[in-house]
């Protein structure tokens, strides 16, 4: 595929991610921090986000599995996940975390279990989307194109 087609494909895809609320403008901020001195910045941050989130999701599952659920501990983990999601622009994950924190506050185990399912679902969705986006970017760059600013 030629550069123009690859770029259109990438823009169409990124537009859909913003339109559907998977990503918000914080992701643009990350893009703007990437330059010649820091060419892999977005990939690096996104990978850190993936590792960190999966660690937190494991911790959350473990915490909910206990006889006596430690709601404070759970809330702390959700707070962290919410924070890092906000930092990379993963809007849907961030939103589910808000609901999750409410359930923690209410000490609502059923609610927390549901929220955990939802947050996992949204996380793996955005992970998939981001991996696809980054792959399309890589293809474009390999073909000689440059990554446009998304909006």
């Amino acid at each position, binding site marked *: 595929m030629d550069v123009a087609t690859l770029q259109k494909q990438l823009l169409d895809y990124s537009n859909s991610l913003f339109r559907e609320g998977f990503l918000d403008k*914080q992701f643009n*901020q*990350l893009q*703007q*921090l990437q330059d010649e001195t*820091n060419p892999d*910045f977005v990939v*690096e*941050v996104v990978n*850190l*986000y993936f*590792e*960190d989130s999966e660690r937190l999701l494991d911790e959350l599952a473990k915490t909910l599995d206990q006889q006596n659920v430690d709601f404070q501990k759970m809330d*702390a983990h959700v*707070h*962290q996940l*919410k*924070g*890092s999601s*906000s*930092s*990379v622009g993963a809007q849907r994950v961030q939103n589910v975390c808000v609901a999750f924190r409410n359930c923690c506050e209410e000490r609502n185990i059923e609610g927390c279990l549901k929220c955990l399912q939802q947050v996992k679902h949204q996380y793996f969705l955005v992970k998939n989307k981001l991996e696809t986006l980054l792959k399309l970017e890589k293809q474009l760059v390999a073909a000689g194109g440059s990554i446009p600013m998304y909006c």
Partner: protein
Amino acid sequence: MMNSSCNVSSSSKPPHVLAVDDSIVDRKLVETLLKNFSCKVTTAENAMRALEVLGLVDEQQKSLDSTDSKVNLVITDYCMPGMTGYELLKKIKESSVMKEVPVVVMSSENIPTRINECLQEGAKMFVLKPLKPSDVKKLTGHLMIEESQ
């Protein structure tokens, strides 16, 4: 006694910022933002580690000759496990050696009482996360003011 204005440096040396945050994603972000404003950055994942970097653990004395570890500004997350950013701020302001170092507190939560208590305790600024380049520009403004005194 030693020259305790550890935030004074020649204008050719990049300012040294200590960034404290328990989130690995946020540490990466803050570090990059600061480096884009020509700062030298040291990161710490918790307040205890930050105190070590500052030489404030167990009455450690900063060596007069350790020129490259002089921190010109501390930016810290508020919510951290163990010692919070607020407690770290207090420790810095209580220390005879480090109390002049400007401290900026950041948080993902916009809670006026939290903001006020930090400012009361001597924080130069309180910023909401996620940090933007305009926030960092403001921050470095505090740095320069300190340096010219």
